[in-house]
């Protein structure tokens, strides 16, 4: 069907352009808020690419995890510390830029090498499973990829415990970074009745 192929080609072109321009915008824009929102756009376009590849479950998971969780968290953090301050000029900005550019170029050359050496075309049309993919992903997650799957959950648990320890300073008497005794007065005590202890 020629119409289907044309539509696919147009979608692919638009999505790739959005990804490229958006990613450049994330890196190059001065305003951190714009960068964060553009990052969301890039994540969405990547989900669109997955949809073009018939991987609808992966696309939805991409939207749920990267847009709905990661990007919202980033924007949340930016808005909670919404402080306008003049940043100090960095002295050795030139050398830093050179170093980061060279690292990025090395990574890019590595990716290009992978792209050139890997055989991308599917061997047979039976390999494309379409709607079946959800079931297959589930089977793989609970058989041969069980260990990475469980290890990832342990990682998330560690991050959660760390966040709780940092947030609830009343469980520790000393500040972790400075070693000074913690100022306990700032901690909100919502369990205390509001009207009785007003002195």
């Amino acid at each position: 069907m020629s119409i289907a192929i044309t539509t696919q080609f147009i979608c692919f072109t638009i999505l790739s352009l959005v990804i490229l321009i958006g990613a450049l915008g994330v890196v190059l824009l001065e305003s951190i808020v714009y960068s964060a929102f553009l990052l969301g756009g890039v994540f969405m376009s990547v989900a669109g690419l997955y949809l073009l590849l018939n991987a609808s479950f992966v696309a939805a998971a991409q939207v749920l995890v990267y847009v709905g969780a990661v990007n919202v968290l980033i924007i949340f953090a930016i808005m909670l510390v919404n402080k306008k301050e003049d940043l100090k000029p960095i002295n050795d900005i030139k050398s830093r830029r050179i170093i980061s550019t060279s690292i990025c170029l090395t990574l890019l050359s590595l990716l290009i090498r992978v792209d050139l050496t890997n055989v991308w075309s599917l061997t047979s049309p039976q390999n494309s499973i379409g709607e079946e993919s959800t079931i297959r992903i589930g089977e793989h997650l609970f058989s041969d990829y069980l260990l990475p799957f469980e290890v990832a959950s342990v990682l998330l648990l560690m991050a959660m415990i760390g966040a709780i320890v940092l947030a609830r300073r009343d469980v520790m008497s000393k500040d972790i970074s400075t070693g000074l005794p913690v100022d306990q007065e700032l901690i909100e005590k919502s369990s205390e009745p509001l009207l009785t202890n007003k002195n």
Partner: protein
Amino acid sequence: MEYGLDLEYSFNEFLKGFGLSSEIAHIIWLPLPMLLVLVAAVVGVLVTVWLERKISAAAQQRIGPEYAGALGVLQPIADGLKLLVKEDIIPAKADGILFTAGPILVLVPVILSWLIVPFGQNLLISNVGIGIFLWIALSSIQPIGLLMSGYASNNKYSLLGGLRAAAQSISYEIPLALSVLAIVLMTNSLSTIDIVNQQSGAGILSWNIWRQPVGFIVFWICALAECERLPFDLPEAEEELVAGYQTEYAGMKFALFYLGSYINLILSALLVSILYLGGWGFPIPVELIAKFLNVPINAPFIQVFTASIGIVMTVLKAYLLVFIAILLRWTTPRVRIDQLLDLGWKFLLPISLANLLITAGLKLAFPKFFGG
């Protein structure tokens, strides 16, 4: 159990009768269901707005809208027209691009989610395999639009409202997804069609509400919180935050928020009826009635009849839930933000987790009743 009308097939055959190729017939067909569902959503919003005004008036012993049409049925259209012709204001120090993009980002995912709402065996836009998961993924985009409009308004009330809205919808998404997961566990499928078919065995007795009472309540509370309806309308709490993230909005951009919130309410009601109340199913199975009346289920007349009964049942169940939501809005006080987050994280999350575990256990123990 593949019966029911296949409108797409008949339409394509009809166009092919005029000598069009099947590709062109398909392209002409594609926008029709989308337009139909969009119109249905907007008409649904008009009806809901009228209901909201009338029921709130009744709850407060007022008369409510009366002069625009009989019983004021044209009042929502008048409201919409007013918003349409109002001046579009962007505050001087606001961020123009983000200010405009915010309401769009709030509305578009909600409308996209209508893709998976079935009104009958074949009466939905697309039976995507990931079905209900698509809705969960799409509804997670909304907080970005809320944060965007809250930030771009350059107003402290807007920013606070946007932050509250995002915090609220993130914390209620988890119990919501977990209670949907329990249903999916029983159905063995993510598709909304399969979820309804799984409940169609014995009419009202086989609806999921009997097998998932806890999940039903958790889902309904979370859906209300996601829609920012009154017990949970913290983001736009008038007395504290003026109007939250919508403070600076006027005209059509405000109308987009308004439309978005009402479409979301109807969508949530529809999804509750699909997930827990048997979707398009009649309380007594239609096959049983057909057998009782001695008419073949595949007769064209019966099929049209079943399809229309299906649409009526879906809409009826959804509007019953909308009615409950409106009554709740006008009779309950608002919770505080810390109570809201406590309820979400310390009560609903453990309960929905336990519900999921129990469902999995019951599925293993009684595969006949809980989907083997």
